[in-house]
Each structure stands twice: as structure tokens, then as C-alpha cells.
């Protein structure tokens, strides 16, 4: 492939946003779980809930910090690398992203500080509300991002006048039906990221025979919640597939690995797509299932990728495989969560060391599913940046040269690897130190805007 500023900009965007999305999805999930825990704590008064709450709050703080820092880069990158997109769609995307920034700041400013430092200074009901507000804030952030991205997938509510995109109906942009299947899908994915991180940590402590009471809460609650969320997530996943089928047929054909029209269509489980011969190799498929999934019918005709001119097709391999990895992760999570819940009801979850190991090792699954899900959505939208309206190749900054784009890609790689390595190291230290030492923390009256600094106190058991 020829290396161009366009290719490097795309790589840079993919790298920076993939790195970034891990942290917000974790914090969205953990914030919701913290709210749930705080309700349980206040309802039952069980100190274990409180210990677990404090423990995950500190980890939340570190992840939140990294999410904020890497988010700054995102806010600049649209103008720097994608100036044509920023200029044309700015009147729509700019306000949406600015709402995201403002709601994120509002959350951080008013309630996060209370969460970290004011437990003893506010009444319990207010503390609970603050926790819920932080969860609401992370959710709102996700909402604005999903509105923005959904507008790029299915643009609506605007006209183009003199080359400028003018929003005509914010209601249609904000309440785009596509938003209301993709936003819950992302939200549930984040909740799963939270529950699996929690359950995996619990399993880890069980395997290490440490922090018994806390480990039990994490493990059981994490798996129970995941077991309940996963079927709902599958449902919303199916709904997202429905919008792709109806609104982005070319992406749907790529995901399905379908090169040619079929009636009734079969469902390809796995294959190796070959774009030169426009066929699949090593194909394993189930007849009729493709029509059933696509149109809920036994004999519908489903379109193939070759119906579309080559210039309008995404590269099939990425959405095809990314989608299968995502679904695979989902099924693996479902099996672990349901088996775990079953054993938990039988009262012999902790004794099953194989499942403990599986649960412990499952913590990357929701994150892999989130990343591959986004690869499917974003690569599947190619060659468009705004679907059907603006091509990615036309959106890139015209004056950007290959060497400059290469410099920036390298700079971001180095900086992010430094942040990622140290961030991971600190989170690991906190997990290793475990939830025991939390309540002996001195009341930190000093600096509410220093989330990461807590990691240290914590790791040293101060």
C-alpha cells in the first residue's frame, strides 16, 4: 500500500481513538456499578460494600485521568488532520462535541470531587446523588459522542447551502433512531467492561486466596450483572445490525462476507474473503440463516458487495473478521457469566478453579469486543467519512504532507506508550495492594483535582 498523509492520518486516528476509548468505556461501566454499590451499601449498611466501593473509586480515578488526557488530543485532531471535514461539518459536529466537553467538565467539576474527598462532609443521600450524577455525566458524554458518530453513519437533519452544512432540525439529529440503538449498545458494552473487570479482579483474589469478603462481592455481583446484561446486549446488537442492513447495505454485505446477491441467503460463519476473485475461501455457512438474520424471513434476497461499484466498497476483511471477533467475545462472556451464575446459585462458584481462571483471564474480552465493534462500524463505513456525503480521501487536510503526518504519528505513539505503560503499572499496583487498606486512608483534605496521585498513597498502603 502506498504510504500517504491520508493513510497515516487514518492510522493515527485509529490508534489514538482506540487507545482513548478503552478508558471512557471502563469509567462509564465502573461509574454505573459504583452507583449500584452505593445503593446497596446505604440499604444494607454492610461494610464490605463500602470497602469495595472505595477500592474501585480509586481505580476509576486513574482511568478517568488517562481518559481526559487522551481526550484532549481527540478534540484537536479533527482540525489538524481532517480540516475539510471539520470545516464542512463543523456547524453540526462542533456543537455536539462542545456539548460533550461541557457535560464532561460539569461532571468532573461538581460531583467527582465530592466523590473523592467529601464522603464525611455531605449527608449520605447527597453522596449517593453525587455518585449517580458522575454516572450520569459519563453517560451523557457517551451520548454526545454517539450522536456525533451516528450522524456520520446516517446523516440527517441538515441541508447543504453554499457548501456549508446547516443544521435544520436538531431534534432529528439528537433523536436519530440510529442513535437510540447504537447508544444503548455502547452503554451496555461499557457496563460489561465494568462488570468483567470487577469479576475478573474478584476471581484473581480468589485464586490468590486474598481479601475473601471483597473478592466474593466482586466476583458474584460482577458475574450476575453480566449474566443479566448480556442477553440485552445481544438484542441491541441485533438492532444495530438491523439499521446497518437497512441504511448501510454495503457495510452489511461486507460484515456478512457476501460477495453476490443470494436468495434465500446463507449465513457465513467463517471464511477467508478474497477481494481479487471476489469470493470466499474455506467457507463454512448455514443455508437460509442469512435471510433470517437480515430480514427475519426464509426467502428474502440479500444484497452482495459486488452490487456496489468498487470505489464505494469498504475493504471486506476488516469488518468481516472484526465483527466475528466481537461476536465471539460476546458468546464467550455469555458462557462464563451464565455458568458462573449457575454455580453461584449452587453455592460452589469459588471451588471451580477452572472457571476462576477463565473469569480472571476474561477481563480483556469486553474491551476487545468494544474495539472490534468500532472497527466494524468505522472501517465498514469506508470509503466515506460522512456516509454517502463526504469521502475520507476528501476530508483530510489538503496541505498535510506524508513526512509531517509520519512525525505526528510517531510522537503520539511514543507519548501514548509512556502514558499507557505507567498508567497500567499504577493500576496494577493498586490491584495488587487490594481493597483491604482503603478505609485506613487519611481523610485527604488537600487536592481534589489529583485523581492519579491517590494511586500512590494507596499502593503504599498509607
Amino acid at each position, binding site marked *: 500500500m502506498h504510504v500517504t498523509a491520508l493513510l497515516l492520518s487514518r492510522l493515527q486516528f485509529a490508534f489514538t481513538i482506540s487507545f482513548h476509548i478503552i478508558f471512557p468505556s471502563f469509567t462509564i461501566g465502573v461509574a454505573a456499578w459504583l452507583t449500584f454499590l452505593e445503593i446497596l451499601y446505604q440499604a444494607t449498611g454492610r461494610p464490605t460494600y463500602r470497602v469495595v466501593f472505595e477500592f474501585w473509586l480509586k481505580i476509576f480515578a486513574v482511568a478517568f*485521568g488517562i481518559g*481526559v*488526557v487522551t481526550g*484532549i*488530543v481527540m*478534540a*484537536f485532531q*479533527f*482540525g*489538524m*488532520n481532517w*480540516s475539510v471535514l*471539520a*470545516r464542512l*461539518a*463543523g*456547524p453540526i*459536529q*462542533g*456543537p455536539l*462535541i*462542545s*456539548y*460533550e*466537553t*461541557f*457535560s464532561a*467538565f*460539569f461532571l468532573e*467539576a*461538581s460531583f467527582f470531587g465530592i466523590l473523592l474527598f467529601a464522603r464525611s462532609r455531605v449527608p449520605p443521600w447527597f453522596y449517593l446523588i453525587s455518585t449517580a450524577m458522575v454516572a450520569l455525566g459519563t453517560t451523557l458524554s457517551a451520548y454526545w459522542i454517539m450522536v456525533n458518530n451516528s450522524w456520520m453513519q446516517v446523516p440527517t437533519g441538515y441541508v447543504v447551502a453554499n457548501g456549508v452544512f*446547516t*443544521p*435544520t432540525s*436538531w431534534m432529528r439529529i439528537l433523536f436519530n433512531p440510529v442513535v437510540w440503538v447504537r447508544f444503548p449498545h455502547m452503554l451496555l458494552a461499557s457496563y460489561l467492561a465494568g462488570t468483567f473487570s470487577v469479576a475478573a479482579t474478584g476471581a484473581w483474589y480468589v485464586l490468590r486466596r486474598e481479601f475473601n469478603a471483597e473478592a466474593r462481592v466482586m466476583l458474584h455481583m460482577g458475574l450476575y450483572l453480566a449474566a443479566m446484561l448480556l442477553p440485552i446486549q445481544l438484542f441491541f446488537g441485533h438492532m444495530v445490525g438491523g439499521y446497518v442492513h437497512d441504511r448501510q447495505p454495503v457495510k452489511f454485505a461486507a460484515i456478512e462476507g457476501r460477495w453476490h446477491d443470494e436468495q434465500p441467503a446463507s449465513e457465513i460463519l467463517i471464511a477467508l474473503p478474497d477481494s481479487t476473485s471476489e469470493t470466499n475461501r474455506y467457507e463454512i455457512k448455514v443455508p437460509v440463516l442469512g435471510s433470517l438474520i437480515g430480514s427475519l424471513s426464509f426467502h428474502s434476497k440479500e444484497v452482495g458487495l459486488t452490487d456496489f461499484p468498487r470505489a464505494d466498497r469498504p475493504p471486506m476483511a476488516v469488518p468481516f473478521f472484526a465483527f466475528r471477533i466481537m461476536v465471539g467475545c460476546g458468546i464467550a462472556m455469555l458462557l462464563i457469566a451464565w455458568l458462573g451464575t449457575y454455580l453461584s446459585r449452587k453455592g460452589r462458584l469459588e471451588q471451580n478453579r477452572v472457571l476462576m481462571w477463565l473469569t480472571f483471564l476474561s477481563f480483556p474480552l469486553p474491551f476487545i469486543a468494544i474495539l472490534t465493534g468500532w472497527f466494524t462500524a468505522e472501517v465498514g463505513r469506508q470509503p466515506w467519512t460522512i456516509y454517502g456525503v463526504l469521502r475520507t480521501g476528501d476530508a483530510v*487536510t489538503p*496541505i*498535510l*504532507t506524508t513526512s*509531517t503526518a509520519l*512525525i*505526528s504519528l510517531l*510522537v*503520539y505513539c511514543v*507519548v501514548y506508550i*509512556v*502514558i499507557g505503560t*505507567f498508567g497500567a503499572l*499504577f493500576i496494577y499496583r493498586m490491584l495488587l495492594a487490594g481493597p483491604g487498606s482503603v478505609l485506613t486512608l487519611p481523610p485527604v483534605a*488537600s*487536592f*481534589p*483535582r*489529583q485523581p*492519579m*496521585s491517590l*494511586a*500512590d*498513597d494507596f*499502593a503504599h498502603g498509607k
Partner: protein
Amino acid sequence: MINFWVSVLALSILLYVLLDGFDLGIGILYGLARTDRTRRALMSAVAPVWDGNETWLIVSGVVLWGAFPIVYATLFSAFYLPLLFMLAGLVLRGVAFEFRNKARHLPWVWDTAFAGGSLVAAFMQGTMVGALVHGLPILNGNYAGGEFSWLSPFSLLCGAGLCFGYALLGACWLVRKSEGDIQNNCFRLIPTLSLASLAVLAVVLLLALSENLRVLGRWVERPYLFSFPLLGIVAGVALVLSVRRRFERTPFYLVAATFSAAFGTFAVSFWPYIIPFGITIDEAAAPHSSLAFMFWGEGLFVLPLMLAYTAISYRVFRGKVGANSVYH
């Protein structure tokens, strides 16, 4: 609507320059600190507020994008490299706050990241301001320059000038927040830094005269503009007096006033252009429906809350920071 958003933009940029200015300045002075105790005191003086300060940079960025997308797209792509290095500098110095005290080995890596990141970020900001004053090639509302159009002796000089200016702001903040020998050193640094800033400013002005920059014509057309530098001069004189008398609180306000005067000069000289002599505010503004959408939510409700929050957090962290009170 346009006036509202251009005011918000101006306010958030000015707040950013003043607030992150002093904390970047302290980062620059950090590079000069010789002892570990001084370094810790310097970090502690900004630790609780730095990320709040940087929020105003992001606010400026997204308001620019939403309300003036043409400016966002034009400037951010024209300033690709300076912005890249500014961001890298800001991120590295930001994480240095967190990692400096946790690092079990190699603390100098984080010391360098903190001082170097601050210096690079300040220099790049000054360079971009310089490039704006110097003029970017704009033809019929489109950017007609290349990747390095920002680069000129003039803009680099402005970069150096802003480093001195931020260091001056930082020293004044430290005078307020510290005691003992650190405070003494800062009192001693203020005249030096003021002179350095002034010297750079003088050279910048001479360069501008020799290149006959269009902005100077503006000054002849609009003589009332001289009231801003006049205000700056008054503040400068007051600064000298207050340093002599060793007032602790006034120097920061006076330098802040000087910065505001410079900012005002800048804004009024170019009015009604938002990119000097290329694109006007009205040309750059997003359609009314975009501006109104932003106004009725974030403009009317969230922005006042953010301003109030900023004020409250500065109240909470008022007072001296001892060298021994490690912030973390």
C-alpha cells in the same frame, strides 16, 4: 449570537492564557530550580489547579469548532506541527505531575518532562500568536499557505517572548504562594524577567516596523488603541513599585493586567477579523441554528457554572504552600 460566542471565545482564551500561563511559567522556572525541596514546592503551588486551567484550552478549542468551524479547520491545520508539539508538551508535563512522586527510579526523566514540556508548550503558543500577527496567507477565505507558513523569525521571537512572559506570571504567582528563600528568589527574578519580556517586545516591535506589518497601519487608523499599551505601561510601573515594596499579592494582578492589555490590543487591532486580515468574525461564524443550539444549553447554563467552579476552586486552594506539604 455571534457576539455572544466571540465573547465566550475571547474570555476562555484570556482565562487560559492567564491561568495556564502561570502554571506553564512555573514549569519553566522548575527547570532552573536546583534543589529537590524547591522543585517540590514549585509543583505543589500549581498541582491542585493545573488541570482546571487546561480545561480552558479545550473549551476554547471546542467553542472554536462549534461556533467558528472555518477558523478551527484553518488554524489547526495550518499550525499542525506547533500544535502537535504543544499537545505533546502539555500531556507530558501533565503526567509528570502524577508520576514524579511515584517514580521509584529516574526522577530526572519526569523533571525534564515537566520543565521541557512546559517550555515547549509555551514556546509553541507564542509562535502561533506571532504567526497570526505576522499574517497567514489567506485567499478568498481559504488557507493558501503551506505547512511551515507559521515559521518566521518574527513568530519564533514571539515564542521566546511568551516563555519569558509566562515565566514572569509564574514568578508572580510563586511570590503569592510561597515563603522564605523561594519567595526571595522570585522577587529577584521578576525584574529580570520583566526586562527580558520587554526587550523581546521591543525587538518584535522593531521587526514589525521594518517589515511594515499591516497591523501597524491599524494603530495609526485607530489611535484609541494606544490606551491598551498605556494601561500596560501603568501596570508595569506599578509592578516595579510593588516588587520594591515587596507586596505579595499585587505583582500577579499587575502582570495579569499587562497580559490582558496585550490581549486587548491584539483583539481590537484586528477587529473585525478573526484570522487577521483574512477572515472576519461574521464570515467564520457557524449558521445561526448551530450558535443558538449551543447558546440555550452550554452557553446559558453550563458556562456560568464553570466560571463559578473555577472561582470556588481558587478560593479553596488559597493561601501559602509550604515546601514540605507534598501535594500528593
